[in-house]
C-alpha cells in the first residue's frame, strides 16, 4: 500500500508537540501504516524539505530562521496544519512582545549574571524578528490544531481523518470545564487566593474557592488533566470561540463574570487581579492579533502599573 509522505517542522517552541506524536504510543503504528515521516527534527536526519502531502508545523515565528523554515514548509507541503498553541497563537514566546528586542538581548546575553560572556552571538544563532507572531502571519495555514501540546487523542483523530479523506472534527464550543469533575457551586469566599495558598478542596470548583482558574475560557484540547489533578487551568489551549470571535469579550471579563456570580468577590477586583498578572493569564495567546489587538487588551499599561506598585511598595 502506498503511504502518504508528511513533513514535520519545529519553530520556536519547547518540543512538546513533537513529543505528543510519540505519546500516541502504539496508536502511532496505525498512523505509520498510512504515512511516511520524512523531515522530522526529533526522529529523522532529513535536513531539506522533501515534497509532502501534509506538513505539521509547531512553534511561533520568533527568529528569522523560523520565517525561513515556515516558508520552506509551505512550499514543500500541500496541506499545512498549525500544530499546537505556539503555531496557532504564538504561545508563551509571545510574552516577548511586551519587551523590545534590545531588552531581551540585554537580559539574556549582555546583563545575564549567570553567564561568563556578556556579548550577544553574532553567528550561528538566528536573529530575532521584530516581534513574535503566529504561523499564519507568515504563511497560509489550512488547519489549526491548538493545545499545549494537543492531547494525542486530538492529534490522532485529526491525522486519521485526513488520511481517510474526511474532514477532521472541528473544534466544539466546549471548554476545559466540560471534562472537569469539580462541583461548581456558590460560596461566600470574598477574596482571591494565590495558587500557593492553602490546599484546594479536590471536589469543588477552583473559582468557587477563590482560586483563579482559566478552565471556563479555554478550549478543551487536553481532556482537563490539570483541574482533575489539583492544578487550576492555565489556559494553554487558547481562548474559547466566544472570546476569539467577539472583540468585546475577553479572558479576564469572562472569568470575572462567572467567578463574581459564584463568590462574594466583586467583578472589578477579579478583572484587576487578572490584569495585574496578565503575563501569566495571557501568556499563551497574547501574540495573536485575535487577543493582542483587542482594543481592551492593554498589557503594556498593566505591566507598567504593576512595576510602579512594586517599586513603590519596596521603596518604603
Amino acid at each position, binding site marked *: 500500500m502506498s503511504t502518504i509522505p508528511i513533513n514535520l517542522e519545529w519553530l520556536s517552541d519547547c518540543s512538546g508537540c513533537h513529543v505528543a506524536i510519540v505519546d500516541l504510543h502504539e496508536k502511532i503504528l496505525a498512523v505509520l501504516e498510512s504515512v511516511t515521516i520524512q523531515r522530522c527534527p526529533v526522529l529523522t536526519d532529513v535536513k531539506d524539505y522533501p515534497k509532502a502531502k501534509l506538513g505539521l508545523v509547531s512553534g511561533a515565528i520568533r527568529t528569522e530562521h523560523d520565517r525561513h523554515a515556515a516558508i520552506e514548509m509551505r512550499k514543500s507541503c500541500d496541506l499545512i496544519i498549525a500544530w499546537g498553541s505556539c503555531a496557532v497563537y504564538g504561545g508563551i514566546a509571545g510574552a516577548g512582545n511586551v519587551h523590545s528586542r534590545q531588552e531581551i538581548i540585554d537580559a539574556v546575553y549582555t546583563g545575564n549574571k549567570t553567564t561568563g560572556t556578556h556579548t550577544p552571538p553574532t553567528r550561528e544563532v538566528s536573529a530575532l524578528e521584530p516581534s513574535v507572531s503566529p504561523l499564519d502571519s507568515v504563511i497560509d*495555514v489550512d*488547519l*489549526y490544531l491548538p493545545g499545549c501540546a494537543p492531547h494525542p487523542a486530538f492529534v490522532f483523530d485529526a491525522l486519521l481523518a485526513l488520511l481517510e479523506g474526511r474532514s477532521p472534527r472541528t*473544534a466544539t464550543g466546549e471548554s476545559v*470545564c*466540560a471534562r472537569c469533575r469539580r462541583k461548581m457551586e*456558590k460560596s461566600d469566599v470574598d477574596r482571591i487566593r494565590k495558587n500557593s495558598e492553602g490546599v484546594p478542596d479536590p471536589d469543588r470548583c477552583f*473559582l468557587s474557592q477563590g482560586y483563579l482558574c482559566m478552565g*471556563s475560557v479555554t478550549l478543551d484540547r487536553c481532556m482537563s488533566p490539570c483541574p482533575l489533578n489539583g492544578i487550576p487551568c492555565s489556559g494553554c489551549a487558547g481562548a474559547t470561540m466566544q472570546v476569539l*470571535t467577539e472583540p468585546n469579550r475577553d479572558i479576564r471579563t469572562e472569568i470575572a463574570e462567572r467567578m463574581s456570580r459564584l463568590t462574594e468577590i466583586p467583578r472589578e477586583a477579579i478583572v484587576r487581579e487578572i490584569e495585574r498578572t496578565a503575563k501569566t493569564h495571557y501568556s499563551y495567546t497574547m501574540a495573536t492579533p485575535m487577543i493582542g489587538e483587542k482594543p481592551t487588551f492593554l498589557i503594556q499599561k498593566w505591566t507598567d502599573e504593576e512595576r510602579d506598585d512594586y517599586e513603590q511598595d519596596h521603596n518604603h
Partner: protein
Amino acid sequence: MVEINVHEEACRGCKMCVDICPTKVFAFDEEKRLCVVEHRDDCIACLSCAYLCPSGALRHEDYHIVKNFYRDLAFCAKMEKFI
C-alpha cells in the same frame, strides 16, 4: 421552535443559566446537580445562558440567527479551520 440541548456530562451544576435566563426556562435538579430545560416554549433565544455557561454545555438549535455586526471578522474567516 427553539431546541435547547444540555450536554449533561459537561454541566458543572453552577446554576448560572437558571439565574440569568430572563424567561425562567431552566430548573435545577438538586439530586443530579444538573440544569433541566423545564419551559422550552418560553425560550426567546437570547443565548445569555449559552454565553455564560462555563463549560459550553448548552446548545441551541432551530432559532433565528442574528449576526453580530461587531464580530472579529479575521478570526471568523478561519474559525472553521480550528480542529
